[in-house]
């Protein structure tokens, strides 16, 4: 079942990749990249078990962190056009 899970995860990543290539909007691509990141976390975890080396989970864990931070950073860029802006505070001042 572990091998099947790994293969299915690769197949589903391929499906998401098609979405990333087709777009059409930029946000579809960001969503696809984020989603592929989540699938990759699962794939790395499953692959560790498939290979008999569950220590690989450290990478899955690190990747889960990076995936989230990268997505938020990218979105912050699109929302404020600047990575250094203190987005939350600006918004609170507006409200």
């Amino acid at each position: 079942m572990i091998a099947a899970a790994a293969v299915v995860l690769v197949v589903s990543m391929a499906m998401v990749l098609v979405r990333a290539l087709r777009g059409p909007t930029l946000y579809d691509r960001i969503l696809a990249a984020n989603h592929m990141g989540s699938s990759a976390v699962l794939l790395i975890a499953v692959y560790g078990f498939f290979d008999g080396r569950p220590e690989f989970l450290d990478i899955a864990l690190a990747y889960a962190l990076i995936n989230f931070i990268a997505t938020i950073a990218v979105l912050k860029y699109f929302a404020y056009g600047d990575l250094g802006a203190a987005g939350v505070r600006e918004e609170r001042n507006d409200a």
Partner: protein
Amino acid sequence: MPDILADLLLGIGILFTLAGSLGMLRFPDFYTRLHAAGVTETLGMIAIVTGLMLKTESSGTLVRLVFIGVFMLVTVPIASHALAKAARHGGVRPALREEE
């Protein structure tokens, strides 16, 4: 017995992962695809991670799996919400159907 349960959970996990990716391909606009992505990242992820938990004896591995699961459950809705908000902010109009 735990082994059968683990395989069952992995099976459920890959079923929902596949459903999420299929939705990503088939659903008509960005916002609906966001829902599809949620399927993989919630139940698909929970089932796979729990299935793997049942397959391990080492406590270190267990701790890491718990961290992965909890961390993804905390971050996934934040990322989805940020995406939805950014897309609306960026002018992506949702395709709506209001039949009533």
